[in-house]
């Protein structure tokens, strides 16, 4: 039932996130479980008419009060360490350690489709993201429209795609498969169908994908992008054999990105 979700991780990021989920739930149950037991006990024991002990003026106890502050504080301090460490360990910007260099894909959010540019391979795909299993995947994101958010739950987290800005998401699939990917940020009429297939394939599969793209004969130039970016609901998968150089940066610049503000290594800039 949780196929290809956080509970069926297909990569190290989602596996670590799943572990984090169970760790934090377990930690919190130390405070929360007693609440259920105590409430049940108190409601039953002290219902009116039982003749149980009745202390109408008992309204404070130093020892008890210290106790009820102490427990949550301990748990939350433990949470701090977990939050600090895991937030750094699972930072979407952090490259994933691997013997292989990452595959860079540039994702552009459109109304209401996803364009994936493979800059090193000079091909592109729409509504379909193919990448080799076992090799880190670095997705650079921007948007040619409203704010979007790219998510592949089986592999890990999501990150926003915003016009004129570049954000980044690092993922790795350690088993082959076809996973659901989508925009999670409401973006208009076509939002519900703004999904794509994220396919983790072996090396030969990836090579044949590239070959297939190159054989398509479609070129993604300025005119091609113009056509592509017209609002489309549930658009088909498309492949492009060549991509105009620096198209990703042209799209960002069209929305007023300033070169000094978009160094790829830095995180999205923030308002103070």
């Amino acid at each position: 039932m949780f196929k290809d979700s956080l509970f069926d991780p297909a990569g190290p990021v989602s596996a670590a996130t799943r572990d984090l989920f169970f760790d934090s739930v377990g930690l919190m149950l130390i405070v929360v479980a007693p609440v259920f037991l105590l409430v049940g006990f108190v409601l039953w024991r002290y219902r009116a008419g039982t003749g149980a002990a009745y202390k109408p003026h008992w309204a404070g106890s130093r020892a008890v009060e210290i106790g009820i502050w102490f427990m949550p504080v301990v748990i939350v301090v433990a949470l701090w360490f977990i939050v600090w460490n895991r937030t750094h360990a699972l930072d979407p910007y952090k490259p994933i350690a691997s013997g292989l260099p990452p595959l860079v894909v540039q994702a552009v959010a459109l109304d209401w489709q996803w364009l994936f540019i493979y800059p090193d391979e000079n091909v592109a795909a729409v509504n379909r993201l193919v990448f080799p299993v076992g090799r880190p995947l670095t997705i650079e994101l921007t948007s040619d429209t409203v704010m979007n958010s790219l998510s592949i739950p089986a592999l890990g987290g999501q990150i926003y795609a915003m016009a004129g800005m570049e954000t980044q998401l690092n993922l790795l699939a350690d088993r082959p498969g076809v996973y659901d990917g989508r925009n999670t940020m409401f973006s208009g009429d076509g939002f519900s169908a703004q999904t794509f297939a994220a396919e983790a394939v072996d090396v030969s599969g990836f090579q044949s994908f590239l070959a297939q793209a190159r054989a398509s004969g479609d070129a993604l130039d300025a005119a091609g992008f113009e056509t592509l970016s017209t609002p489309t609901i549930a658009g088909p998968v498309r492949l492009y054999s060549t991509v105009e150089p620096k198209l990703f940066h042209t799209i960002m610049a069209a929305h007023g990105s300033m070169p000094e503000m978009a160094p790829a290594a830095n995180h999205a800039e923030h308002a103070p």
Partner: protein
Amino acid sequence: MNPDLLFGKLTLDALPFYSPIAAGGAATIVLGGVAVVGLITWLKAWTYLWTEWFTSTDHKKLGIMYVILALVMLLRGFVDALMMRAQQAIAMGNEGYLTPDHFQQVFSSHGTIMIFFMGMPFLFGIMNYVVPLQLGARDVAFPLLNAIGLWLTAAGAALVMASLVIGVFSTGGWTGYPPYTELSYSPTVGVDYWIMALLIAGTGTTLSAINFIVTIYKMRAPGMGLMQMPLFCWTALCASLLAVFALPGLTVAGGLLALDRYLGMHFFTNDGGGNVMNYANLFWIFGHPEVYILILPAFGVFSTVIPTFSQKRLFGYNVLVYATMCIAVLSFTVWLHHFFTMGADANVNAFFGIMTAVIAVPTGVKVYDWILTMYRGRLRFDTPMLWSIAFILTFVIGGMTGVILSIPPLDYVFHNTLFLIAHFHNMLIPGMLFGLFAGYAYWFPKAFGFPLDETWGRRAFWFWVVGFYLAFMPLYVLGFMGAVRRMTYYDQPEWQVYFIIAAIGALSVLLGIVSQIIQLVVSIRNRAQTANLAGDHWGGQTLEWSTSSPPPEYNFAVLPTVCTLDAFQVAKDMGTPHLWPERYEPLEVPRNTMVGLVFGALAFLLGFATVWHIWWLAGLAIIGIVGITIARSFATETTRIIPASEIALTELRWKQAILAQQGDAQ
């Protein structure tokens, strides 16, 4: 003459004939309005309503009107919820019965209404009714400002309702994130309705909040120090402080978005140097404290109800006060957790995650304090207490999922999914709405002199609680499975069963609401048998129970002198619950005035004219608002005197009711 000049963008196309469902909704609103007007006319009640209610500045009447507004808007917001649940239960592999545009209007108006026009008026209504009475005050600090606050809130609500009949509502959700809500992506008037409704209601809320702060700091009964104040007043104070400090965030976010849309500026646009991230920051600098504005007063209700029905003092009053203040301050330090996924640095995300986890501490302490209040008490399970117990048990689940979402790597996965939706409904329904229902049942006999029917109250309670679990637990599961919020349709067959269960839950809530309507009718019908003028219906501990039910216009003939917490309980323990002076002094009370209502009406016109670009009307409305403000400042006869003889008579009638009740008891 050019019609654009006269009617702006308004044409006959604004009527909702684009879909039969929307036309049906509009017809319901119009026919409902006509029916209400007809009924009032038939009952010849206009004069009564005008003199006793619409022009009143009495905090008790304003409080009741706030609650009525909230209950009406609850019905509207709930119909939206039912439509969403029905749509998503059906729309697997097909488009369902709503178009995307209509579905988007429905979820946007649901969120906007439930937060701003149901939750806020409901809690401001209860605060209005209860706070001055609990403080031992005769009214709030600024009665007219109080009326203006109510009518501005009503004007905002009226704009949302008007959008159903004339034009469309926003499709941008209750958060209205640009650039989607910019003119280039949302060219219709929907977003303008949303902005104007929020700005007008936000102004009203700011004025009301200032009023409560001053009332609580300056108008307490002689001898009542801050630490002798009932806990509900503390939570009202914290909520009001939060509102004063936080609402400017909404005003700026909404105002700048309006400037982008109306004057072509570039605050949040994709081009021209706009920056959408500013909006997210501004909105959530308001938005997160807003959550505590909604929840803290409900905590105050629970802290009042639980001791009363445990027949015991509140455990750890000081700790609860400090915890409340802690939460209020901390609520300003966590806003970034609403957009961990925007790409901030890991240090920033971790910092805000840690700050968020800190809030769990005072909240957890409160929960333990409430349990310890019940410990060694004598628990009575009347409906206010039932709501409180359901709150404790349900709220801790929401708290747990909240901590999960506060951990950035988990938020990367759950953000924007139905897990998030389940979480915040899990906080706001038990945390806010159950508290408001508990307060409604608890103070109803105070406000009207007769209690609500218990049998129907219990039915409503069970339908609501069962409905809540059925409606929202499946959403957690769907969130785990990767289902996101705001989908009109989907193509994953395994999701559908959970959406159907959630829809069944919504139907159970519907039965709960129907039960509440029946409860109200039954209670009013039986009021002759259940009437209790004497005042102390539940065995309350705080000063509002030391007055008659309903209390007289002036609240207290003699201001009580207070030297301890739970002043009324202490007075009862000492055998002197009521003081009957030899002689009464005449009292000065504010005169009725139509200024508040006119303010609200002009604000509505201003909002409506701005939405439709009818600039002459907007100009007239502004001139009217400035003019009435100046004119009012020249008015000198704004109060009237209640003569001592009238007061003596009222008090005597009340004394007889108390004696009669004591006679019955013997």
